[in-house]
């Protein structure tokens, strides 16, 4: 049913820390690796070893340059996947009921056997979170690794989305945003977690933590290196053997 639930029991989602993301794309690879061989149709590639390769990805990492009014530009790596919106426009446009939001945990999923591949849900998503698989003709999207997080065949430590599990810089966190005491809710509170495109009215569950302010080193021109005083030359005039060698070599 493509009408949105008025409320979900849990709001599972991700916090993505733009301050610590190093842009290594490990989450992209682990996402593709897990999701191409588990829930639903594989994530196909077209012309993967040819001149014009492309493929289906549920998670992509952009990089942006931000230039403040004063000071140096910052480079910010920006992972982007489905934000599992509360008012998900991709769900209500679906004509077949294939696209739905789960009442129990708020995950937005596609029932691939009902999907006619019209693409309208991808049109309705402002974030580019949905991609039509060119081989299967059905819509693919992040499942929040629904086949990992409840999977009792996996060790408990692995029961989180593949992207979170693999992130080497701990830039991705998984949890329940409906619980104000959860680690993700606390992170959002402490760090000022934000919505992407709030004006679109999608109420995304996933939050992004803005980069922390950078040190203002370039404004203190006098003293850049705190070790500099200890590295001043102690002797300015050479003495003894070295002095003789210096003078002798000069004369040659």
């Amino acid at each position, binding site marked *: 049913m493509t009408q949105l639930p008025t409320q979900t029991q849990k709001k599972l989602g991700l916090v993505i820390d733009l301050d610590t993301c190093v842009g290594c794309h490990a989450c992209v690879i682990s996402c593709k690796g897990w999701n191409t061989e588990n829930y639903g149709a594989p994530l196909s590639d077209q012309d993967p070893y040819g001149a014009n390769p492309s493929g289906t990805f549920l998670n992509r990492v*952009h990089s942006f340059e931000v230039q403040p009014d004063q000071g140096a530009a910052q480079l910010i790596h920006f992972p982007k996947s489905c934000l599992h919106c509360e008012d998900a426009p991709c769900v209500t446009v679906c004509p077949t009921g294939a696209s739905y939001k789960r009442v129990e945990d708020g995950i937005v999923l596609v029932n691939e056997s009902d999907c006619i591949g019209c693409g309208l849900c991808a049109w309705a998503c402002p974030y580019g979170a949905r991609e039509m698989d060119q081989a299967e003709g059905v819509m693919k999207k992040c499942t929040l690794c629904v086949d990992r997080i409840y999977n009792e065949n996996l060790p408990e430590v692995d029961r989180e989305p593949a992207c979170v599990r693999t992130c080497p810089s701990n830039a991705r966190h998984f949890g329940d945003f409906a619980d104000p005491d959860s680690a993700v809710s606390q992170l959002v509170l402490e760090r000022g977690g934000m919505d992407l495109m709030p004006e679109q009215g999608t109420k995304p569950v996933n939050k992004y933590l803005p980069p922390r302010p950078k040190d203002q080193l370039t404004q203190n021109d006098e003293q850049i290196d705190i070790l500099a005083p200890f590295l001043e030359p102690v002797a300015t005039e050479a003495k003894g053997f070295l002095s003789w060698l210096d003078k002798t070599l000069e004369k040659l």
Partner: protein
Amino acid sequence: MHPAPSVIFFSTFSGLGFGLLGFLGFGMFVPTGWVAFVFFAFAYVLAVGGLISSTFHLGHPERALKAFSQWRSSWLSREAWCAVAALVLMAIYGAGLVFFAQQWTLIGMLGAIASLATVFTTSMIYGQLKTVPRWNTYYTSANFLSLSLAGGALLADQGNLTLILMVVAGAIQLATWLRGDTAFATSGTNMATATGLGSIGTVRAFEPPHTGTNYLLREFVYVIGRKHAQKLRIIALVLMAVLPVILLLLPFSHWLALLAVVSHVAGVLAARWLFFAQAEHVVGLYYGKR
């Protein structure tokens, strides 16, 4: 947006067909016998042909029947219902005129309303999308409906009414373009809100996620239409409205009327191509392509 030929043909020809069915259903034009058969057959070829062509862009057309299930929330589903209602009602009304020389007014009226409702639901599929500011307006519905009515009037030989509807459709088309040109800038969605980084400084796309292309770029970041857009607009408007009006003002001949129809259809096809090619989806912001 990628201008898929199947969707351009669908929306142009089914719009024309449902427009003609609208005039037939409202009893503005009441042929009987063989003449009625020819007109209804023509309207059905346009409307049904358009609907069939629209299934060509589906990944799984064999599951198309499932699209009737979500009429409570989905404009695409509502379009499917309206189209079937219109085609069934107008088939009954048409059978009355062709085989019994009877005009069943009520069924015709309901069929005409369903026909125009189909065009409206088609327009709302695009008009509802906040992600495409150029489309997210009632101008889109006015544009689709006025073109459908003008084309229907042209096919149903409505005389002076055709002239008025042609001029109105042309004016609405022009207004839609002018409003659309500023829509993205005034929508409030930009690189700052897309990334949430606007409070730090000016955001610029530095590196895309992949060196190659992808589905999103092919489908939503189509930019080929921009270069000749203004010339194409003039061509579209002249063919769609100006030329047909001039041809209809000349002394009547069937050849001139046919030329007016061909010109109108060519103009609407060009305008519909621009409708897609010029539409900017907000996801392009993440790729620095807006």
